[in-house]
């Protein structure tokens, strides 16, 4: 069979590429995300090396006599989680009055994952991790680091997964603040905000913000951030304008844990 060489005009080429771009734009994210996952999977080694180099450059001098800031934050988060759990258990005790209950995270398992790429601080805050469908990771599961929630599994392929961080501007998660539930939206610059909270609720800088429990996904409230700024809304003084920052340094992380509630055993 003779090879027939065809010459495509520049205009036609432009139209084809434009069409391809539009298809990518309007195709479902689950489908187009496979291209991103494939790229991450193929180049995971150089991507990891690049990230490790940038992390290594940020390593501070080791402290000998005092505990590191990261360890301190980790322990603080653990205390906050335990306090919240204790409060919840007290409530259960009061409600059930004698019925046997089990510890809320007793049936949970954690899947450890290494971070391949991380995009934090800018508009998009996302991690790519080296665990996927074959590790029984599912979309919507919570991702933890330093005893705190840092994001949700958003996109998944067989061997890699994307984690949408709580600071991503597309992230909207239900949280507990001042003993009430509100939606926390990411701002994109390593912070998130909580709106529509009346000033009658007492909120101050440093207050802990917990993720709202979602049965089957996360059965107990867990710390997600602390209030870094709290001021009255400029347009509506009856509402708070609250800025929340994560309780762990996400850009310094090398690994995370995915929370799998009540895993099915083979």
């Amino acid at each position, binding site marked *: 069979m003779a090879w027939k060489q065809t010459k495509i005009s*520049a205009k036609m*080429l*432009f139209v084809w*590429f*434009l069409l*391809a*771009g*539009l*298809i*990518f*734009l*309007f*195709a479902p*994210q689950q489908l*187009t*995300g496979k*291209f*991103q996952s494939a*790229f991450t999977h193929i*180049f995971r080694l*150089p*991507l*990891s*090396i*690049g*990230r490790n*180099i*940038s992390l290594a*450059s940020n390593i501070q001098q080791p402290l000998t006599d005092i505990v590191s800031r990261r360890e301190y934050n980790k322990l603080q988060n653990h205390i906050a989680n335990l306090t919240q759990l204790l409060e919840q258990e007290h409530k259960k005790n009061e409600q059930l009055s004698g019925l046997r209950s089990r510890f809320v995270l007793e049936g949970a398992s954690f899947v450890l994952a290494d971070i391949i*790429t*991380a*995009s*934090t*601080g*800018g*508009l*998009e805050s*996302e991690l790519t991790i080296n665990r996927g469908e074959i590790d029984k990771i599912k979309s919507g599961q919570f991702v933890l680091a330093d005893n705190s929630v840092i994001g949700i599994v958003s996109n998944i392929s067989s061997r890699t997964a994307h984690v949408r961080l709580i600071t*991503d*501007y*597309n992230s*909207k998660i239900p949280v507990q603040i001042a003993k009430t539930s509100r939606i926390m*939206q990411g*701002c*994109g*610059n*390593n912070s998130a*905000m909580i709106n529509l909270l009346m000033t009658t609720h007492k909120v101050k800088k440093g207050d802990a913000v917990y993720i709202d429990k979602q049965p089957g996904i996360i059965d107990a409230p867990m710390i997600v951030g602390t209030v870094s700024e709290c001021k009255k809304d400029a347009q509506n003084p009856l509402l708070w304008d609250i800025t929340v920052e994560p309780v762990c340094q996400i*850009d310094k992380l090398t690994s995370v844990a995915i929370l799998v509630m009540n895993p099915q055993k083979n």
Partner: protein
Amino acid sequence: MRWIRFAVLICLATILQAGLLNLFAVTKWSIKPDLLLILMVFFAISCTGRDAIITSFTIGFAADLIGSTMGTQMLSFGLLGVALANLHRIIAIRKMPHQALVIFIISFLAGVLCYFLTLLKSASAPNAYAVIFGSSLYSALLGPFLFLPLSWWMRIKKPKR
């Protein structure tokens, strides 16, 4: 056009953009130069019609692979790259300050266009324009210094008009 060299360059730039370039991130918004956009501008002003179309859209596709939404950067890079290639037939962009200015304008326009396209699929972001402006400025400062090594790697002696 040396396509194998181009492919190697794009792969390398995409990997650097996704990981190592975080070393050079500044301010609390982690503003970093957009290496792929600098490449797009370089190829748009160095290549003729067909090659400029292919390189612009391909670089946009590479940028999408490390971004959050597929298609947005492919379209914005492609449209602006082709526009720049056509503009370069009329106006020569050879001096470094001119190159920096072009990178800044194209980067800002591409950022804004990409942001608007992203809005079709997701929520709006606060401080988006500040981040786009910062990134454009950073790319404009760095970009012209990369044009010489890029010309050497791609064996391009003089930018064509």
